[in-house]
């Protein structure tokens, strides 16, 4: 089974990588509970791991 990784999916993975794991860290009251982060990563991991064979659009292509 092949899965086409849509451009939006590529961007979402990079978005999550940045917003949840990057940026200035301030010891405040972080809204993001562990469960919330897990929810995001679970849905992403299902997306990524379901793609045994991934067809990725070349740069400039849309899907």
């Amino acid at each position, binding site marked *: 089974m*092949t899965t086409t990784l849509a451009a939006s999916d*590529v*961007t*979402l*993975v*990079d*978005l*999550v*990588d*940045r*917003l*949840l794991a*990057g*940026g*200035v*860290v*301030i010891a*405040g*009251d*972080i*809204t*993001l509970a562990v*469960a*919330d*982060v897990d*929810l*995001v990563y679970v849905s992403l*991991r299902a997306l*990524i*791991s379901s*793609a045994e*064979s*991934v*067809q*990725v659009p*070349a*740069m*400039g292509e849309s899907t």
Partner: protein
Amino acid sequence: MIELYAIADDPTPALPEDAGSLNVTAYGGLAAIWAPAAERAGARGLAPEDLWRHEAVVEALMAVRDLLPVRFGTRLADPAAAQAVLAERRDELLAALDRVRGAAELAVRVVAVPGAEVDAATAIADVHPPLAALARASAVRRGTGPDLLRGAYLVDCGAVASATRLIAGLDDALPRLRLLCTGPWPPYSFVS
């Protein structure tokens, strides 16, 4: 409670008229940009839309100012608490702002083309050096899952177009690899 979006220089350009609830709290040449905290995602869970909405605010701010993006979901009790953070970490934050001034982040992930057997070390050796040569700074690591490499490159804003052309060229020149590039992003990977 307030939710933080970014830290910028003070004085900072006026916030756009449609900025809604955005506010600025300043101290010592720094400005914390924040909004009153909305209800927590809580039981309904966090959706991509929550992240995109936040990101749209940060990118709109970045269009007219240099900034350090704050990690998503960072909340403080009130503006006084934000001012205290600026005071406590003033030197560090000023130095970080100087490092990212006039630059944006490009995200580059490398996957193997279906059927191709490529190891991470090869992917990194083929892709990283030419990109690093174009960038002010880089943060690269071996990827997980299908990613051979996950890279973040801090590139002068004026060099973003040539960097993306280089990445497209590498994608063409390396038939066993596919390069996934997104951005330009605020410099999330280069704030410390």
